[in-house]
């Protein structure tokens, strides 16, 4: 028989009432946990890094002639200070945020096992439930502090070195500096949700794996697994059912109109993972037997109790999304690609026209269309790949002959398009254009676009 130490609600009479009264409030326990976390050298180091490194990185890149154009918004870093925070966000969503989560949340319970301090904490706080919430809130606070540092530092570095200028969105439309600032902050806020989902998984790992160092690695391993899954040609519903999809779906904020369907689904999925993983961690924690100092609560049965609810949640969300939306394919179709490329080209053509001080045109006047296929028509024009080719056609007011330009496309499985100009050279052949104010980047040479994987919203 195993004695489980929990706060019983069975008869205990006055003694239990007194014990209730003596329990430490969550606020005090939270402060205690925060003190412990902040006193750790690695947390202090991470805080320093998060509040300084992104700004230094953005500033350093802005001094370089070569830009990280393979990262979303990287090609615009010289043009505006608001591109830098988005480049940092792209990198952070892949690596930095999962690692931060691992260090902070993946160790918050396991540390007590390693130090052998559970009994002392229980004597002092008198409530496993309050200890759980205090630890979870302390980890959340530190994570928010670290993410705030990433945002503040990258924004400061970007604006200080590249200026508070308009940002070109993913479909080529221009955002004013204030709109760009709002969207940047919103994008980071959106990325915080999957970060917290990973944190909840980290808490669960920390509870389940006890003093094992594997607890520390759980969020990072889950993040790597999700990264690998995003690279594979998986159905859209499967991608969206992963708690980390919101790390990339913030892209939709930078289209006009914003592509919110994927983002909202991804955020809802992340929230569900936060709730379920935290609830499972809580349930397992308060049922743990703390009377046996050599037992850190690990075991195959415990691991199954932790994993099965998450597997069920994944299956449920996958099934729900697949049933509610036509999302069993790749989500990348010829029509969507053509629409996306045409829209981006139209917006960027206006930008180039303005740079070159030519007579202004509107997207409606240009009547841009795109015709795209894969491998010269030898492959079905659907799905991700780097063999997409588009011929863009537009009309200038007062001319009868349409203009044509060719682009080679690399489309990632998450819908990101990288378009590389393939002529004519006076339109997209050079990476610079000569403007009255001097040379400037040619917006039509290479550009980014985005295919909305779920059924497409009307484009502007």
């Amino acid at each position, binding site marked *: 028989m195993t004695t489980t130490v929990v706060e*019983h609600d069975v008869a205990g*009479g006055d*003694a239990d009432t*007194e014990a209730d009264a003596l329990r430490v409030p969550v606020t005090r326990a939270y402060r205690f946990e925060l003190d412990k976390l902040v006193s750790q050298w690695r947390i202090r180091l991470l805080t320093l890094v998060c509040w300084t490194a992104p700004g230094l990185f953005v500033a350093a890149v802005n001094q370089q002639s070569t830009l990280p154009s393979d990262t979303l918004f990287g090609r615009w870093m010289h043009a505006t200070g608001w591109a830098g925070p988005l480049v940092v966000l792209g990198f952070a969503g892949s690596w930095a945020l999962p690692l931060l989560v691992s260090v902070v949340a993946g160790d918050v319970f396991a540390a007590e096992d390693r130090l052998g*301090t559970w009994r002392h904490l229980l*004597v002092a706080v008198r409530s496993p439930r309050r200890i759980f919430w205090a630890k979870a809130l302390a980890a959340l606070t530190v994570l928010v502090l670290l993410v705030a540092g990433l945002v503040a530092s990258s924004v400061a570095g970007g604006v200080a070195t590249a200026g508070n200028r308009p940002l070109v969105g993913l479909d080529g439309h221009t955002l004013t500096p204030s709109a760009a600032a709002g969207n940047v902050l919103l994008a980071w806020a959106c990325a915080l949700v999957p970060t917290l989902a990973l944190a909840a998984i980290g808490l669960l790992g920390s509870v389940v794996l006890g003093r094992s160092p594997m607890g520390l690695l759980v969020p990072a391993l889950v993040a790597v697994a999700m990264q690998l899954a995003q690279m594979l040609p998986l159905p859209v519903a499967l991608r969206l059912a992963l708690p980390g999809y919101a790390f990339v779906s913030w892209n939709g904020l930078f289209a006009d109109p914003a592509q919110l369907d994927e983002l909202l689904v991804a955020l809802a999925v992340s929230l569900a993972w936060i709730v379920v993983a935290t609830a499972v961690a809580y349930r397992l924690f308060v049922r743990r037997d*703390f009377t046996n*100092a050599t037992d850190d609560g690990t075991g195959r049965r415990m691991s199954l109790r932790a994993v099965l609810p998450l597997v069920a949640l994944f299956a449920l969300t996958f099934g729900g999304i697949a049933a509610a939306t036509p999302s069993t394919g790749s989500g990348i179709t010829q029509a969507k690609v053509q629409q996306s490329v045409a829209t981006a080209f139209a917006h960027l053509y206006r930008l180039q026209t303005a740079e070159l001080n030519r007579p202004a045109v509107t997207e409606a006047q240009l009547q841009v269309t795109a015709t795209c296929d894969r491998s010269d028509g030898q492959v079905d024009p659907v799905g991700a790949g780097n063999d997409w080719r588009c011929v863009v056609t537009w009309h200038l007011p007062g001319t009868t002959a349409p203009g044509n330009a060719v682009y080679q496309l690399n489309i990632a499985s998450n819908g990101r398009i990288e378009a590389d100009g393939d002529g004519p050279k006076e339109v997209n052949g050079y990476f610079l254009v000569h403007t009255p104010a001097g040379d400037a980047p040619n917006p039509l040479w290479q550009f980014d676009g985005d295919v909305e994987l779920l059924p497409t919203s009307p484009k502007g």
Partner: protein
Amino acid sequence: MDTQRAVRAVRARGITKCFGDVVALDDVDLDLTPGQIHGLVGPNGAGKTTLLGLLLGLAVADGGSLEVLGRPVGRALAAPAGVAGFVDGPGLYPSLTARQNLAALAALRGQDRRSRRIDEVLGEVGLTEVADDRARGFSLGMRQRLGLAAALLTSPRLLVLDEPSNGLDPAGKKHVHGVLTRLADEGATVVLSSHRMDDLEALCSEVTILATGRVRFSGPIGKLAADGRELDYRLLTSDPAAARRLAAAAPGVRVVDGAAAWRGAEALVVRSSAPALERLVTRLVGEDLAIREVAPVVSPLEAAFLALTEEPTDQQEPQERQERHEQAEQQEQRKQEADR
């Protein structure tokens, strides 16, 4: 209400506690009075830490009743008010300094984290000079003292300590013993476990000896020696040969080693009860032998501990079974004779 019961710091009756199939505590009774330093002794796995854990509210007994400081302990996992201490080490956070450890604990309990009491307890346990050093670099003894300081922060009426002397140097031990004695003098009850019999004999007025979860003895240490139990004593005299001859002839005294080397001298080791030893010493003095040292080879507490907790060996068991069998047969014969 029984007044004796009303003033008890701990009153346990028939406490049982199991971990799976392992019975950690089996029908344990314990009474502790205020102002008492009570030692808990037993071999590894005897149930000492489990019992201390119950007093600290870290676990709930499966059976029996437990009152701590006059209040029945409920089913909740919680230390009763006025109880402090530690089991399985002092439980410190290595990234915090000694002062920060105490300040964080004080704040957790709703006290001012800059309270002067923190400096006071650091001084009491002799850690003032390292108050701002991180606990990571502390020796085991320093950690033990800091754990004691943490317990003292609450001015406990019942202090529960598991192996508090582990790793303590003589100065540290003196500090700790001084603190515990002062606490007891002020009316608090201290219950501690230790494998150091000399510490327990120096500190405790009463001890409880546990083995395999059961109480084998509970009461004053003096009672252990007065129980007529024989001990080995070492005698250093001015004439070892004469002492050996007199000891061999003394009633109730058995010579264990007639020529034991002890600090460069020849000592005599005898086994006897305390009264028989006293008679032998009187006889030696009467024969004009100078007595340079009389001391138990092992302390009365250690001897009692060994006697009460030693498991029967494989060779002993059949012999004991045979003796029990013979006794039973004799009883049966007497009963049959009486019937006739």
